[in-house]
């Protein structure tokens, strides 16, 4: 057994000329930037608590070869480094130590343990490590409450903090956390749940158990256990014949959760439209408006390989390679623990790619966030974090998860809106690549399991973390939301597993693979068992993080970094050898069968026996009511402004968080690992202008590319979700067109995040919200058909509501549309920045008086009240597509030197951003545009967000050829890229907007500057 007292290691940076305590300094700057709190100095001490068979003889090696970098750090064992006056000559005003709570993933500790095993193989067999971080504060203002300070530095849901205040510090009483001992789990035998009870009690069972099952679903389960054949079979295997075990009920709850079964998208909807008089039934929005259009398109093209049924959708990219894409949301966990929630989001969606077909390699990430306003000054309901803190945490989680996994983050967006205060939306997407065929001839997008294949669980172990994630995300967030649903990802364990499984795939060792996400083993094995017609699993074989977990906990735990794979019995030895080389845990836990049952044992005892058909197809269809009554919104009011003041309007618009530069945040994502990123998040002479879509060339040295773009405009939902969805899709396509996408090979992803839209006491406006969903789906259907843009995968998250202290905050209906397209030759890709003075500027596409819910009127509303108007941009897919085709052809002839889409903030914002890229101004005349469009005024022209518009520039000597190429489209020559700092826009001989580019750029860059160097 391990020695009783852990060894305490403490490490702190040396003070050398030119060397800072950067961790402490970062905290100091953050407190200053977020709270205006000025502290003269913050220092940091990293602590390690080491349990194991160690004594004084090991200390020196432990310090100098492992925990402490002898060049730049001091380290001590079993002493307080704060007592060493050579290192800490001054007593701090406060010292705060942060450590994890028991059972929370501590990645640094795991790394430390690995290091101990390298240095001391024999002492480390039972070793355990945990880490702490201590901050010491100097020049802390007297009025600062240390508890408040500690709260800014830790999240009590996952971390512990202890404080030494000024007097404790003066007395050398230093904070010193104990080793976080997890509580002892007592293994409980499976319980039997009696369902022969009143309906009220059925609901109570569901609610108390966090099962998220409604009455009808509970009754369906009740009915299953009344079936005499079922009872007879159960008796034979030694199960209670007339009632489910807790294992079975949990397994059904996970499998039938909204999260896994998409019950609202599958519901039968009675839809009434008070505007048109429509009164109709829709049998599944998903089948009607998402699957059907895609399958209709699939009849006409031959490159759609895998649609809807796998962890991601797959397209053929060329004869040698396929591409796949998936996006997920991780909203509820990110609200409770922004860092861990977002990190598990990104590494989770990476596993969807790894679990597609026989395994794809993740090659690009996308991140789209919706937060409350970063400068929000109103009340924050108790239990929620300030949006700024959510932002920092989510960003850090995605940065850490993506960067450490070696996957570039190439595209994304950030949206700020008050209604995201409750639940932030954290969309994480991943693109994968897989060989079209494996060496043995199998197509790698197909799974090929047979009965008899051995089921392996690979990667991390199962713990009590992450229990009830799937059902929890199917409920609104409340004070009672369980902390067990929150986890921290471990990218390195996952990276080792990715390397190993892709090698196993290439060696032909995998027959089937899927990830363990929502619902854990229950879902992963349950889903794959459908392919062979059954599975038999022994939970006692599953490796655990801590002993004593009950059967149902092992089955549904969503502990991260795990895949489930199927391997032929004769290839198991080779598979296990590969796992051992990569130091990846791979454990056989069962076999696939064709028995028709999901048969779960714990040791010798059967603990669950559920027919596969009942498990997957037994959930009853919801019947829902939808009613559309068009909303009325007050018209906005526009101020009287001269040209300079109009420049001021543009400047304020550029400073809005939705439009402002995100460079400070995005630059800390690795967007170039894999050495394939052609069009990056940044472009322009100073590398700081915004790119539109990403272009990657994933095969090194080859010039075929892939385009990744997205569209998101939740503002429009307040007027019409049809327009919102149409706008999103057009934005994604427009962005892709700007870089030169191949319009004949594009695929889409729809990610819906909706507020609860089932009418109930909690949601009296459920019919309206459901009608919003119906209209959104109809737009998706219409626009995807028109653009021949099949949705190949997607996801919905339908309960984005928070109820805290009786107050409900619901997100606005939000769609993220992600596009993955082909690029024929990346050497012809186009970026958004203007290139050289003298180049000719054109606006392509028609401008209409469509300011409804635009960023401009939202700004006026925020500044001085007024409405958001009613005329939201409408889509004309025929006109837009014709323009996109002609522009794409012109790009292939290399006639276009820049292209930037007009979206948030409209034409004027696009013009300013293209100028930022050239570090120059310009002078344009927009008179011609007015001749073409009735009813347009200067506000609509400058800041309206009409769809289908792209701002391009062309070399003067190629302008005639370009104009000829665009002759069938709306194409307006506006002027030239200029020199100097002035931007001016004139109309009928009068200057209506003038501004200094450098001033505009400053306001654009200042809003979201995260602080620091």
């Amino acid at each position, binding site marked *: 057994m391990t020695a009783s007292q852990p060894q305490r290691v403490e490490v702190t940076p040396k003070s050398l000329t030119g060397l800072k305590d950067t961790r402490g300094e*970062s905290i100091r700057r953050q407190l200053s930037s977020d709270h205006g709190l000025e502290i003269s100095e913050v220092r940091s001490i990293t602590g390690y608590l080491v349990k194991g068979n160690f004594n004084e003889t090991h200390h020196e090696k432990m310090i100098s070869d492992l925990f402490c970098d002898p060049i730049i750090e001091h380290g001590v064992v079993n002493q307080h480094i704060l007592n060493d006056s050579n290192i800490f000559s001054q007593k701090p005003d406060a010292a705060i130590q942060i450590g994890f709570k028991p059972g929370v993933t501590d990645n640094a500790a795991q790394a430390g343990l690995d290091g101990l095993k390298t240095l001391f193989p024999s002492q480390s067999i039972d070793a355990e490590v945990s880490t702490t971080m201590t901050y010491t504060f100097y020049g802390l203002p007297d009025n600062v409450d240390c508890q408040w300070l500690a709260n800014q530095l830790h999240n009590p849901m996952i971390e512990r903090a202890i404080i030494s205040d000024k007097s404790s510090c003066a007395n050398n009483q230093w904070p010193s956390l104990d080793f976080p001992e997890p509580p002892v789990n007592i293994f409980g035998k499976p319980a039997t749940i009696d369902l022969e009870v009143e309906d009220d009690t059925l609901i109570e069972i569901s609610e108390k158990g966090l099962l998220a099952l409604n009455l009808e679903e509970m009754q369906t389960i009740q009915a299953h256990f009344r079936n005499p054949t079922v009872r007879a079979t159960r008796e034979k295997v030694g199960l209670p014949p007339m009632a489910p075990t807790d294992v079975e009920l949990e397994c059904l709850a996970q499998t039938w959760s909204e999260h896994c079964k998409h019950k609202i998208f599958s519901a039968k909807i009675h839809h009434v439209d008070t505007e048109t008089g429509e009164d109709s039934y829709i049998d599944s929005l998903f089948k009607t408006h998402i699957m059907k259009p895609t399958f209709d398109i699939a009849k006409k093209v031959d490159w759609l390989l895998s649609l809807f049924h796998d962890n991601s959708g797959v397209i053929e990219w060329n004869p040698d390679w396929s591409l796949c894409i998936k996006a997920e949301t991780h909203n509820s966990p990110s609200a409770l623990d922004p860092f861990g929630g977002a990190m598990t989001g990104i590494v989770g969606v990476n596993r969807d790619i790894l679990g597609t077909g026989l395994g794809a390699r993740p090659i690009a990430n996308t991140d789209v966030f919706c937060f409350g306003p970063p400068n929000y000054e109103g009340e924050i309901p108790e239990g929620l974090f300030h949006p700024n803190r959510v932002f920092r945490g989510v960003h850090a989680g995605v940065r850490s998860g993506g960067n450490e996994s070696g996957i570039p983050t190439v595209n994304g967006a950030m949206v700020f809106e008050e209604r995201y205060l409750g639940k932030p939306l954290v969309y994480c997407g991943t693109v994968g690549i897989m060989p079209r065929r494996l060496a043995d001839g199998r197509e790698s997008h197909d799974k090929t399991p047979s009965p008899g294949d051995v089921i392996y669980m690979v990667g991390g172990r199962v713990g009590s973390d992450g229990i009830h994630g799937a059902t929890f995300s199917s409920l609104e967030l409340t004070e009672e939301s369980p902390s067990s649903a929150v986890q921290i990802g471990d990218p390195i364990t996952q990276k080792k597993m990715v390397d190993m499984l892709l090698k196993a795939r290439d060696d032909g060792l995998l027959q089937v693979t899927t990830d363990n996400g929502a619902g854990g083993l229950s879902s992963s094995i349950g889903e794959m068992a459908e392919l062979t017609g059954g599975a038999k699993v022994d939970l006692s074989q599953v490796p655990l993080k801590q002993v004593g977990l009950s059967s149902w906990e092992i089955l549904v735990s969503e502990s991260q970094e795990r895949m489930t794979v199927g391997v032929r019995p004769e290839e198991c030895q080779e598979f296990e050898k590969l796992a051992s080389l*990569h130091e990846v845990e791979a454990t056989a836990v069962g076999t696939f069968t064709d028995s028709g049952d999901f048969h779960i044992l714990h040791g010798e005892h059967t603990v669950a026996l559920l027919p596969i058909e009942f498990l997957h197809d037994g959930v009853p269809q919801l019947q829902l009511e939808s009613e559309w009554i068009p909303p009325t919104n007050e018209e906005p009011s526009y101020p009287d402004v001269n040209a300079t003041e109009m420049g001021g309007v543009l400047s304020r618009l550029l400073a809005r968080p939705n439009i402002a530069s995100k460079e400070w945040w995005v630059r*800390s994502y690795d967007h170039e*690992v894999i050495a394939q990123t052609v069009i990056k998040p940044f*472009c322009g002479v100073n590398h700081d202008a915004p790119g539109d879509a990403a272009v990657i060339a994933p095969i090194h040295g080859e010039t075929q590319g892939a385009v990744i773009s997205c569209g998101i405009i939740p503002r429009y939902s307040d007027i019409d979700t049809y327009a919102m969805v149409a706008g999103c899709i057009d934005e994604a396509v427009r962005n892709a067109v700007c870089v030169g996408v191949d319009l004949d090979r594009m695929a889409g992803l729809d990610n819906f995040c909706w507020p609860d839209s089932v009418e109930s006491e909690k949601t009296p406006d459920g019919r309206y919200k459901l009608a919003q969903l119906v209209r959104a789906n109809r737009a998706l259907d219409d626009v995807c058909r028109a653009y021949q843009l099949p949705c190949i995968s997607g996801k919905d998250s339908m309960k984005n509501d928070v109820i805290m202290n009786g107050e409900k905050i619901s997100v606005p209906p939000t769609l993220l549309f992600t596009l993955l397209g082909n690029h024929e030759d990346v050497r012809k890709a186009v970026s958004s920045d203007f290139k050289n003075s003298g180049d000719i500027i054109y606006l392509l596409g028609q401008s209409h008086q469509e300011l409804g819910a635009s960023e401009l009127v939202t700004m006026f509303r925020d500044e001085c009240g007024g409405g958001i108007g009613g005329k939201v941009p409408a889509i004309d897919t025929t006109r837009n597509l014709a323009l996109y085709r002609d522009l794409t052809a012109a790009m292939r002839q290399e006639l276009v030197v820049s292209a930037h889409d007009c979206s948030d903030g409209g034409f004027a914002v696009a013009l300013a951003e293209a100028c930022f890229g050239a570090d120059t101004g310009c002078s344009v005349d927009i008179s011609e545009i007015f001749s073409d469009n009735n009813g347009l005024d200067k506000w609509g022209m400058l800041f309206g967000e009409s769809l289908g518009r792209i701002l391009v520039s062309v070399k003067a000597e190629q302008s005639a050829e370009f104009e000829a190429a665009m002759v069938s489209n709306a194409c307006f020559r506006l002027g030239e890229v200029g020199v100097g700092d002035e931007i001016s826009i004139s109309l009928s001989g009068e200057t209506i907007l003038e501004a200094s580019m450098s001033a505009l750029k400053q306001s654009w860059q200042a809003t979201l500057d995260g602080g620091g*160097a």
Partner: protein
Amino acid sequence: MVEIPQVAVLTGFGINCDLETMAVFEMAGAKAHRIHINSLVNGDDSLENYHIMAIPGGFSFGDHLGSGRLLGNRLRFGIREQVRQFVKDGKPVIGICNGFQVLVKMGLLPGDDDVSLQQTASLTLNDSGHYEDRWVSLEFNSNSPCIWTKGLSRMRTPVRHGEGKFVVPDQSVLDQFEQQQQIVARYIDPSDKYPSASNELLSYPLCPNASMRNIAGVCDPSGLVFGLMPHPEANHSKWLGATWTREEIGDDWKGEGMAVFENGVRYAKENL
């Protein structure tokens, strides 16, 4: 004379630039092999089968306990003599980004004549306090014995790190490295006239991490072992440049970064 040099590109434990590092060596005319470090430790394979060793970028062990530290220990304690022999045999070694951090933490860089694997310098957190991905300009020391940078003057590459600040305990150590021409690559302001590399610390973000004396890369006294924080392999083709859409590019799309790998491969061909 080696016709096609065989390159061991190490992988495992969070190394993640292995595929592009293999690609650039193949583009430069070598044969690249992806070698899991454990297969060198367990004896399935040996470094003696290869002519060049490359430790690619990545996030080995999540950078916990200091970037490169734990992977450096795996090499220092797991295959110590193999590594020493490889260097003593006069075979080239390159470490990029996390690979550079590994070489520094295990003491192979800046190193010494005996290949004693004693750490004498370190790489620590950027002064900015955060990880970042941005393009920088490098200038190479034309008097350096480094075989990887022969004939190179300047190069544009991305840096992608949070711990790239090169530090030593005492400035005299740097003087000594400088005297031995071991300071191979420095961050510079591309608008300054060549040569402009200097000891005067450049402002952020020209020197992205506040590295002492703007150091971006160093070699060992022999010039065979080279490590740098920036990623030359990420500029293997001109379409990967930060501003390539603003430049007139003829038919030659080979990126500036390739010269480093071509130098290494040429050296192996001519000397091994």
